[in-house]
């Protein structure tokens, strides 16, 4: 009897090793290239390390205190937030509007959907370059509107517009799926009750696509906060540092300004902020899904 039990134990152990071997490669890659560097980053953020030398000194919370009076950090934060808000609001509004226009499945609507979604497949870099010339050659050259990318006040809006062009198609695709999932009976009841087109939208469509709104807003919020490629390609952070984003500032602290320790502290505050912001926004949107 005890022998039998031993045998069973060995088999179970072997089974769980085999099972773990399914997870192991993915987990190892994730730990090695994401989790481990993330944890390593925490002690670095408490040092004055320049990223090159062996000369490292612990400075306590000095990096964390310093960033809040650093005007470059404040500037990068406000640039990032402006970009994120414009990107989230307009990509979603336009995406929803496009979805309402072409939600009905038909040949022509499929072609238009393909057209609107195409920019999303291009790299962010390419989008930034093409728009740079649309601003300077078409907006300025043909319409006489100066390129927003050359104006300190408008540069973030100009960059966000490129993101909206690229991401509105993404939002649209999600909204189309949500709208097509609404049962026709709701609209039939609406027709009997004599709903007009605005009431139909407000009382049937909008409440039913709540989860899609939550998903899109939360995702675009994190894309917007992480913005890096557009300003790198289209403005290099200029004019001056008026389009430098937080992601660029962290990159610059490692490769250009040689303040890796300080950059890492910014990176950690940045990560926590994105976590908190995503959590608060998705929590509140989810709560509203029920109320609508």
């Amino acid at each position: 009897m005890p022998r039998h039990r031993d045998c069973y134990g060995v088999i179970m152990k072997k089974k769980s090793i085999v099972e773990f071997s399914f997870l192991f490669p993915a987990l190892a890659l994730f730990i090695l290239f994401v989790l481990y560097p993330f944890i390593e980053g925490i002690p670095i953020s408490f040092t004055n390390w320049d990223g090159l030398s062996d000369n490292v000194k612990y400075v306590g919370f000095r990096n964390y205190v310093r960033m809040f009076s650093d005007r470059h950090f404040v500037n990068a934060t406000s640039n990032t937030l402006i970009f994120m808000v414009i990107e989230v609001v307009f990509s979603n509004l336009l995406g929803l509007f496009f979805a309402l226009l072409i939600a009905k499945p038909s040949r022509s609507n499929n072609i238009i959907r393909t057209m609107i979604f195409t920019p999303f497949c291009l790299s962010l870099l390419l989008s930034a370059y093409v728009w740079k010339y649309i601003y300077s050659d078409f907006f300025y050259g043909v319409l006489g509107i100066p390129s927003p990318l050359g104006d300190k006040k408008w540069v973030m809006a100009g960059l966000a517009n490129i993101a909206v062009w690229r991401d509105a198609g993404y939002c649209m695709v999600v909204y189309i799926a949500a709208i097509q999932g609404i049962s026709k009976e709701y609209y039939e009841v609406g027709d009997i009750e004599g709903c007009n087109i605005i009431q139909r939208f407000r009382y049937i469509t909008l409440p039913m696509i709540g989860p899609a709104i939550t998903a899109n807003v939360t995702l675009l919020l994190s894309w917007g906060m992480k913005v890096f490629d557009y300003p790198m390609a289209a403005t290099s952070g200029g004019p001056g540092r008026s389009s430098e984003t937080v992601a660029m500032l962290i990159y610059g602290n490692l490769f250009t300004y040689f303040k890796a320790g300080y950059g890492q502290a910014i990176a950690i505050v940045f990560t926590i902020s994105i976590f908190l912001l995503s959590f608060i926004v998705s929590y509140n949107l989810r709560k509203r899904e029920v109320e609508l």
Partner: protein
Amino acid sequence: MMKSRGKNVGKFFHTILKWLIGIICISPMYVAIIYSLKSKQELAVNRFALPEVLYWENFSQGIVQSNFFNALKNSFITTSLATIILTVICSMASYIIARKNNSKFYNSVYFIFVAAMIIPFQSILTPLYINLLRWGLVNSLIGFVLAKSGFQVAFTVLIITGFVKSIPRELEEAANIDGAGLYRTYWQIIFPLMKPVIFTSVVLNALNIWNDFQISVTILQKQSVRTLPLTQYFFFGENNSELGLAFAVFVLSMIPVLTLYLSLQKYIISGITSGAVKG
């Protein structure tokens, strides 16, 4: 009678509006294409009209000067390698996570993956760069493939796990009774059933890796290992005045992505919508 005419007018405007939006959305591509086909002289006088003469030299010169085929090769190698790695290891991981959903350990791993989706690359940039430097993986295509794959693991596991949960367990149980091991059961029975979600994850990952700039600009700094986006970045920096040339390189690098998109559109769309509904 009046009402139906009003309806027709409305429908007419609706049609015009939606086509107009579609055309506006792809019009920037028109700019890229006509710029790439004009000589420097023609660009100076005529920017937006169709080119009078098709100036193909932009393409031939752009290919040579930007070392285009080398970049294409690098992009192709890294994208296919990372996509294959991700598909194999993440589909296996997703399978076991979905099946062991009463195990604390597997559930916590899944939860960590979900949370890691939000981590910005910048938070691991410095330590990762230092590690790669130490391991001799900076300026190496393998280094980029491993780092990029590591970063995409969470997202890939997330889309595949949702799908595996919908595959009934009875099939595997039958195989188990027949004495097939876990590996055989997986590759012979489960993996073939996962085809639609595998397609989706392959396409979404391939697009993402092909277009990557943030991670590659950190790891791949030498010219010989640059991928297409990096080549565009540096080539454009050096050829700001040679617009036709720069745009020819852009148009060339758009072709593979657009081909992928137009031929596998179905999988991209279904992937996005299934991912979003769960998110």
